[in-house]
């Protein structure tokens, strides 16, 4: 069975396609969302999910969150004594989801469809694929998140002819896609997005506001100790969620034995978020421009992603389109469900026989060229696109170029991806050298062919028809792992001890209690301590009923202390 996995910045989820519908896979705690957080115990064991996220402020040096933002970069995260790359941390999350799915389905899971933001570039996609391999999953397909969400949405509407826009603001990335549905064909018309814009950025705004509010007590928040920063960050997330429901949010922080109170109003928060909100416009405009569809002709604007729960975002979208967006699907689950549908398509599920999905390549790709200027001299660094964005994939296009100077012995093709007229603003993908005949180099045409496959992976071929020379580019991949090393790294990850699934609930609760105790003072602290000890004693008895009762009690106490837990 192929599972569909939404590997998110804040939360991840897993779903399967069964009996003609999608089913969310619950984790050991019974939740469908698993926080994308990894923490390492002093004894070297790995915690993933809610338990790890609760340790964010209590075990600062050994907990990692939001690592999806570093996918495809060389950044190394130190956890305790071990160091990880973003894809390895993602692999640990994927492994936890895989274990959940296996427990839920009662069979081994080895294949998956994983979602990536539409605007992930080639490098980030490859890193995601590697994360899957490291977790022991064969990645059948990488599918774009808004496309997945649209599949989940479109499957309910498949008898209608409609065109709609998916507005996907997740924890760390922002994507816009315009889709059209007719006769069982789900066609992505255009995708656009921002790789670094999401709920986390709104949390950062909140952190800055709290920092300004508490400046007299704690000084500059950017210089504050890591532990305090984490605590503020946690409070910020909680307060941002409060603001979704009321006009004002407040939090209490304990630092150096003193109580710090902070209150932020909706107006302050929204004024400070203005620059982020502005950045939501460009991708929307671009996708509409590219399709040539008028905003008023869209049948629906569908909101996806946890951050679209913010009233600020809903209001912005309403203003942008002059109408109210649709809430037809659950913004947290849509992407995972869509991935499961893609998995069903892949495994030829009978219920999906009449559905075909076509996707687009969301960015332009081409090479760097140099043009002679009218006034003499050369203008270098001009980007000449070969694959123009939003062409339907798979696609293959060819263009002809020639050398600049007759004396040239070879031509260097620098491959870039991006939308700017200048290559310096685009992403460098690779380099290719094509030999030409010196002496008459300018007359020799060079055909450059770009092929982009359905998984979003690029291949570049250059051919000189006169001499029959062919060159092929394996796109630059700084972290490409040799086959042997992949095995080795997978073994290294597999060797990490993981706590058994059945103790996960206990661990998550204890981690949360630990965090609350650190944040409490005086009598309250003693009270929480007592409740926690009682729970620990109950765990010692190993009697399921006693444990369940004690855990309910502790949960109640903690909810009273800091408000309901959230995902």
């Amino acid at each position, binding site marked *: 069975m192929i599972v569909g996995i939404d590997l998110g910045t804040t939360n991840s989820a897993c779903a399967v396609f069964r009996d003609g519908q999608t089913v969310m896979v619950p984790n050991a705690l019974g939740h469908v969302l698993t926080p994308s957080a990894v923490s390492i115990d002093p004894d070297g064991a790995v915690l993933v999910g809610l338990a790890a996220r609760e340790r964010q402020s209590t075990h600062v040096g050994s907990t990692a969150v939001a690592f999806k933002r570093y996918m495809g970069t060389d950044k190394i995260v130190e956890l305790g004594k071990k160091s990880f790359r973003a894809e390895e941390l993602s692999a640990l999350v994927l492994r936890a989801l895989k274990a959940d799915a296996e427990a839920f389905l009662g069979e081994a899971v080895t294949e998956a469809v994983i979602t990536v933001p539409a605007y992930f570039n080639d490098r980030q996609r490859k890193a995601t694929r590697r994360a899957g391999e490291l977790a022991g999953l064969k990645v059948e397909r990488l599918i774009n998140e808004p496309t997945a969400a649209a599949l989940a949405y479109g499957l309910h509407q498949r008898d*209608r*002819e*409609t*065109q709609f826009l998916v507005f996907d603001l997740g924890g760390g990335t922002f994507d816009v896609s315009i889709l059209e549905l*007719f*006769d*069982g*064909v789900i066609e992505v018309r255009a995708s656009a997005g921002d790789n670094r814009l999401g709920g986390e950025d709104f949390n950062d705004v909140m952190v800055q506001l709290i920092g300004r509010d508490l400046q007299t007590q704690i000084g500059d928040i950017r210089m504050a100790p890591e532990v305090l920063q984490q605590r503020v960050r946690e409070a910020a997330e909680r307060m941002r969620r409060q603001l979704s429901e009321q006009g004002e949010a407040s939090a209490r922080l304990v630092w150096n034995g003193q109580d710090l109170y902070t209150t932020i109003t909706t107006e302050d928060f929204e004024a400070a978020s203005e620059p982020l909100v502005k950045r939501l*416009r460009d991708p*929307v*405009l671009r996708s*509409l*421009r*590219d*399709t*040539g*569809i*008028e*905003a*008023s*002709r869209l*049948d*629906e604007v569908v909101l996806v992603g946890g951050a679209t729960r913010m009233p600020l975002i809903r209001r912005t979208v*309403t*203003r*942008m*389109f*002059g*109408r*109210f967006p649709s809430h037809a699907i659950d913004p947290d689950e849509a992407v995972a469900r869509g991935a499961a549908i893609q998995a069903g*398509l*892949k495994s030829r599920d009978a219920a999906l026989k*009449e559905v*075909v*999905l*076509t996707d687009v390549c969301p960015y*332009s790709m081409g090479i760097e060229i140099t043009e002679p*200027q*009218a*006034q003499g001299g050369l*203008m270098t660094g001009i*980007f000449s*696109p070969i694959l*123009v964005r939003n062409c*339907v*994939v*798979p*696609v*293959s296009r060819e263009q002809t170029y020639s050398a600049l100077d007759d004396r040239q012995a070879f031509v260097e093709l620098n491959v870039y991806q991006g*939308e*700017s*007229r*200048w290559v310096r*603003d685009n992403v460098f993908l690779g380099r290719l050298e094509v030999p030409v005949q010196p002496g008459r180099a300018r007359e020799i045409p060079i055909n450059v062919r770009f092929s982009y*496959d*359905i998984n979003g992976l690029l291949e570049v071929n250059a051919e000189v028809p006169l001499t029959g020379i062919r060159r092929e580019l394996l796109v630059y991949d700084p972290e490409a792992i040799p086959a042997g090393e992949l095995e080795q790294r997978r073994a290294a990850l597999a060797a990490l001890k993981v706590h058994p699934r059945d103790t996960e609930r206990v661990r998550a609760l204890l981690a949360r209690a630990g965090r609350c105790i650190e944040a409490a003072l005086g009598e309250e602290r003693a009270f929480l301590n007592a409740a926690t000890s009682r729970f620990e004693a109950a765990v010692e008895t190993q009697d399921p009923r006693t444990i369940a009762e004690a855990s309910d009690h502790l949960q109640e106490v903690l909810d009273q202390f800091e408000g309901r837990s959230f995902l």
Partner: protein
Amino acid sequence: MADAPWSILGIEPTSDRSAVRRAYAARLKHTNPEDDPAGFMALRAAFEAALHQSDRMRVVDWYGQQQDRVEDPAPPPSAAMSRTTIEAPAAIESTAPDVTLDAVSNTRAAGPEELQGSAGPEVAAPGPEDDRQRISEALAKLQRQLWGPVEPELDQAAAAVSPWDTAQATLENILADPAMDRVEIHLLVEGALSEIVEVSWQEHPELARRAVEFFGWDNRIWHRLTPDLSGFLEEEEEHPVLWRVMQRTHEYHAVYLLLRQTPDPGNTLWVLRTIWFGLAITRFFADASDGGQVLQARLPAHIRAYWLDGGLRNIRFARFLPLAIGLGLIVLRVLWA
């Protein structure tokens, strides 16, 4: 070869868009992009070519209908064609000189007309429809102002002022209009301005510059709505001063990058950088070869305003700081020796 797309789709050439789409959808079930990438690519190319041809056939049909109507004014337009036939001429009448906004957006949105009917119940739109009306009127006014009265000698007062002076206020009003928050209006304005700029950039470079700055046309590779401004951009980019900015080794390059950032006196790093480049910034603004103006014109308005209204004065003394430190070090070194 001309009917190749139709034979791949397996239908007769037709001007009916939805018939083409139905044929494509039916073929797609067997030529899935998953299993048969090459077959899919051929099908897709055929589909796009067929859509294009059917659009052109529809235009021919439309003219045919127009012809019929001139000969025999009695028959009403068919239901399917009513939208395009009625709206385009109406727009021509309502908007002045030669650019017809509604017609522009209609042809641009090559979206399938048949979807119009199937659209669900209209949600009560928070933005009223007269936003569109107001903006269209403002754009028409802008054009009238740019190109002046039809017969200048009849309107001496209007002919005396430069058209740009009056048009500038209109343009700024349009760009600052709250209705621009709606993406639909934004695209409408962008489309209209792109047409205006495309024909008038030699006459009104200020307008072109402002529009290029606002919509970011200078840094895009390809767009349906990007005007063909290669002439304008080349002229702008080939100014000798801009050449210096383009050269990475020239100090103007670094200064320009620094100046593009929104001034942030609270940010220590930013302040230090402006002090470090202080002398160069002063030179940048006062470039003798009329380049100062050209450079300033390319900075976003609020940044330009910041520097001209006091920003330059603020670094009046501070800009000599790096020089002073350098001299001080030399003096110290000499004394040390």
